[in-house]
């Protein structure tokens, strides 16, 4: 019953934000071109890396393309849901409008995480899927049930980790008010997700798997695609994802205790 209420509310969210975003139709076209160009650019960069060496960190060019595909999908999801909503938190807190969110008879985290949607990200997600299908063909991957479930599980875990990272940084706004730049830092670190983890030196690998789990976000799902992934890695990703989701939730509830409204 509760779930039905949330679904109903979400439908309304979708409706209102789509209506307001579709006002800027040329914007969506420009965003699509941006997404295509940025994919072309990263494949270009990858081809520079591979022009004199067959392998990077043990990955062939065709295999590294899978990472690009998964990154593009995740980036599309970030641009569709996380980015527009979580930058709104900063505004809510600075202007004190978070009061209105907290007063509503609905979970505040749900409200601020899903209120908005940016449809131009859909095109990026589709672009990523096209690339992935292309990769499945050139790498001759068998589409069987276990592969599909495993890749679905790992990608959803990646989405959870990504969401938690974004939400975590946005939550710190309650103390620091201006976290716009912290989001920029996260963005630039996430950029690393375009490359296989094994192409970095040991110290950076540690950094990217323990402190900022970028490794889990793209490398493990790509390994699942290639059938290289061990069971323990997938289990680890499941554990990391659930830790992240639970902590970000706890952190939000904790942070709310420190929320002192602004300008009212």
């Amino acid at each position: 019953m509760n779930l039905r209420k949330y679904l109903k509310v979400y439908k309304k969210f979708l409706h209102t934000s789509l209506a307001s975003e579709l006002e800027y139709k040329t914007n969506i076209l420009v965003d699509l071109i941006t997404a295509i160009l940025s994919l072309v650019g990263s494949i270009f960069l990858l081809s520079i890396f591979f022009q004199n060496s067959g392998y990077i960190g043990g990955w062939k060019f065709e295999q590294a393309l899978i990472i690009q595909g998964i990154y593009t999908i995740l980036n599309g999801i970030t641009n569709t849901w996380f980015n527009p909503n979580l930058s709104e938190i900063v505004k809510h807190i600075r202007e004190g409008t978070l009061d209105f969110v907290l007063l509503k008879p609905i979970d505040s985290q749900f409200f601020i995480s899903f209120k908005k949607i940016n449809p131009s990200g859909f095109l990026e997600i589709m672009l990523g899927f096209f690339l992935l299908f292309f990769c499945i063909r050139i790498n001759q991957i068998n589409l069987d049930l276990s592969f599909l479930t495993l890749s679905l599980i790992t990608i959803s875990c990646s989405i959870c980790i990504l969401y938690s990272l974004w939400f975590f940084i946005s939550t710190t706004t309650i103390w620091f008010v201006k976290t716009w730049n912290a989001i920029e830092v996260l963005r630039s670190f996430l950029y690393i997700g375009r490359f296989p983890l094994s192409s970095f030196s040991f110290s950076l690998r540690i950094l990217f798997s323990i402190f900022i789990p970028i490794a889990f976000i793209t490398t493990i799902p790509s390994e699942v695609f290639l059938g290289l992934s061990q069971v323990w890695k997938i289990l680890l990703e499941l554990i990391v994802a659930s830790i992240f989701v639970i902590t970000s939730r706890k952190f939000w509830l904790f942070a709310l205790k420190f929320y002192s409204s602004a300008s009212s």
Partner: protein
Amino acid sequence: MISNLINRKLFTLLKVQYSNMLEYRVEIALWAISGIIPFFMLNIWTNNNLNESLNISDTFLSRYFLCAFFVRQFSVVWVVFSFEEDSLMGKVSPYLIQPLNPFFRYFAQHLAEQITRFPFALIIAFFFFIFNPESIWIPNLGILLLSIVSTFLSFLIQFLIQSIVACLCFWTEKASSIERLLFIPTLFLSGLLAPVVSFPAYVKSWIYLTPFPYLIDFPANLLSGNETNISGGLIMQILWIFILFPLFKKIWSEGTKKYTAMGS
């Protein structure tokens, strides 16, 4: 007389903006951190020995990427985002009444931010040298001055391009998406992620005619003490400024006629 007036105004603006920027030290420090992507790229290059077949030595590469980091730090431009916000909020109207082009204000803002950023960039460079002691070098005074000039010219080119895009706000309201589109070729072709020397021949044949390699690759090569065509590079930079400046003036005078004072 006129230049004296502009100088005095610009100096006052700079002083105001500098004290303004000093308030946001943490944000600027974070912003400086978000520019460390070149170091991650360096890690991929050296860790996979990609440079060997290109005849680029490790020390050259680490110096190059450090210089690329520096050049990027002092040529970051965000005038579109400021101008878009100001124009949506109607803040541009009072600026237009003043006997000074509002872009001088943004220009002073950028310069002040660069001065504030300088110590943070030095700290990051210091850490870089701790990890890569073999790449320490001292450029001679002439080269240092020339590279400061060329970095400033690179900043000017980007500032002019973004100002032209910002003027599109008079027509479309959301010009920042066009800027995000333009940022993609800047990111991949300017030499921030890979030196232009390493680009395949089919790109190298035309890239030197575009403004991109003069934004980061040329000043970075100059500063790191590499063989570059110094006079040719500087001439191209100045040439691009001479092309862009009249374009900006034209679009500015057209745009102000279109201005409809939103939000006020």
